[in-house]
């Protein structure tokens, strides 16, 4: 039986290496700084920053959130300072302190993704780029890029042409599609080195006082434990279809046991999103709990557990 001292907790995503598999989730850690009061950012796998666009953006009107049973809806609308400010201020702050940084980008056009990738490429020290393609495509009736294989692939292809081979490209997909494995395979063919699964699930809450949609943006993204079974299913399906493509898993992870479910389903890394809202110390706690659970199950290395649920009934862990 391995112990916390000898256990190998490292992981990698398409060539990028991380001391632990626990990451923040984009949009749930702002630029990282805000969590520094609660834990040492260098002790977790990586900080995935809030999806940034080319220009500064105000985002959607308030109210921007509604709590739902074991979950919440958000409609932030990608508020942010724009990529130039972000790369000049927020990324250096994190890198100077020794944190690993995964930069998440979001665009409204295929071109904007390429522009963002070019700017990210100019900054050294970034571990990977997460391409959030779960945003509305203004050139195509506001249809979300990741909802169609074609537009999903074109957005990723634009990024690959600029930055491919330099740092891993992680394509972040929405679960709100008929066949997530089809979208996954088209973005992998277009040059994604890894996948981030899952973004929020589209939902709505009606305010019973106003009798109108509660959120300023009407619909919002559902996150938190409520959607964990959807995340596990998506990760399992995609890992089953493409076992060699690393997955950054997320969706409702609030404890070590939750993280373990996603890992066994096929995730090489785990992002913690909404759980940090309820517990600012969620990342180090989940990390500790996951390690104990893996050790208790006889694993000596984190990597051995990735996708374990797919192995035949007779195969052993050790």
């Amino acid at each position, binding site marked *: 039986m391995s112990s916390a001292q000898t256990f190998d907790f490292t992981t990698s995503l398409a060539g990028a290496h991380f001391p632990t598999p626990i990451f923040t989730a984009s*949009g*749930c*850690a*702002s630029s990282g*700084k*805000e*969590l*520094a*009061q*609660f834990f*040492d*950012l260098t002790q977790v796998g990586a900080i995935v920053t*809030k999806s940034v666009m080319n*220009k*500064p*953006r*105000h*985002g*959607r*009107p*308030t*109210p*921007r*959130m509604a*709590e739902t*049973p*074991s*979950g*919440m809806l*958000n409609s*932030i609308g990608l*508020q942010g300072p*724009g990529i130039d400010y972000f790369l000049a201020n927020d990324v250096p702050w994190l890198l100077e*302190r020794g944190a690993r940084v995964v930069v998440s980008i979001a665009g409204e056009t295929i071109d904007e993704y390429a522009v963002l990738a070019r700017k990210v490429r100019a900054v050294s020290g970034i571990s990977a780029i997460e391409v959030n393609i779960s945003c509305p495509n203004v050139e195509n009736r506001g249809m979300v890029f990741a909802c169609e294989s074609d537009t999903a692939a074109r957005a990723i292809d634009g990024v690959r042409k600029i930055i491919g081979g330099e740092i891993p490209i992680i394509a972040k997909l929405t679960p709100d599609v008929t066949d997530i494995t089809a979208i996954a395979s088209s973005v992998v063919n277009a040059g994604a080195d890894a996948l981030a699964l899952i973004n929020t699930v589209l939902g709505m809450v009606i305010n019973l006082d106003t009798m109108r949609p509660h959120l*300023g943006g009407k619909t919002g993204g559902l996150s*938190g*434990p409520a959607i964990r079974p959807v995340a596990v299913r998506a990760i399992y399906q995609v890992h089953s279809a493409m076992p060699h493509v690393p997955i950054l898993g997320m969706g409702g992870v*609030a404890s070590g046991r939750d993280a373990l479910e996603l890992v066994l389903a096929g995730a090489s890394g785990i992002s913690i999103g*909404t*759980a*940090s*809202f*309820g*517990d*600012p*110390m969620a990342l180090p706690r989940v990390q500790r709990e996951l390690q104990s659970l893996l050790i208790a199950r006889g694993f000596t290395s984190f990597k051995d557990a990735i996708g374990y649920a797919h192995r035949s009934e007779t195969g052993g862990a050790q």
Partner: protein
Amino acid sequence: MSTINKSATQITATILSNKRVGAYHQILLAIGDLAALCRPGNFVAIAVGGDSSKMILRRAFAISRITHGNASGGAMELIVAPHGSGSRWLCAQPEGSEIDIVAPLGKAFGIPTTPVNALLVGGGYGSAPLFGLAEVLKSRGCRVDMLLGASTGSKIYAPLEGKRSASTLKIYTEDGSMGEHGRVTAPISSLIASGAVDVIYSCGPMSMLRAISDLTSGTDVVHQCAVEESMACGIGICMTCVLPVKDESGSISMLRSCIDGPVMDASTVAWELVGKTPPAVNS
């Protein structure tokens, strides 16, 4: 490492007492050394519903007052309105319960370095942070007048406390069941005109804060208000709690009321844009 919320910690606090006071619950939490770090205007974020709760987000409450003291350290007083399921759960917790809190959070009220005439205006449970604030202001030699308002008398928290902590106290209720009949904003114009006010500190519903801002605009009176927006995280990581705020150049940013507030300079808030999308950012 960071300068944001630099005193904030997550601790388990024991409920020392939980008393119904009018429409509210006065809840006293043992918080030990944390007490020394809390300032009037800071808030606390509380996990609700227990271990198997479907409520995944913390609830924010203004820190009403801090008492330092006995062997077990300091205590934090909250004034909680039983509103929805989370606050009702909190109000139902008996003495001795252990509560998971994160505090102190957010920006506190600015305290003038020289004695001034301060007017404290509270609406409903918005009076919560004003009692502690009044004590600090008086210790700095300020004159403290207080106006408390609510829809009805049971929603005026602890009028006697108010009397003790302020030089003068006036109460307004919309149904006239306590104090004067009317809104708490009614006397402000004439108080300003009479020169009796240098700074207004306000806490209460957004409509009250906005009304006071309208009254102070064009005057020399400084107005610090504690805003209240729905907060998912309370620590600056979710961007749900934003408010449109103007900088010197007049350009608007959506600032997080949890870390850039809850106390804000009311003259910088673009009240007419709250709940709307400001015009696109030009850059």
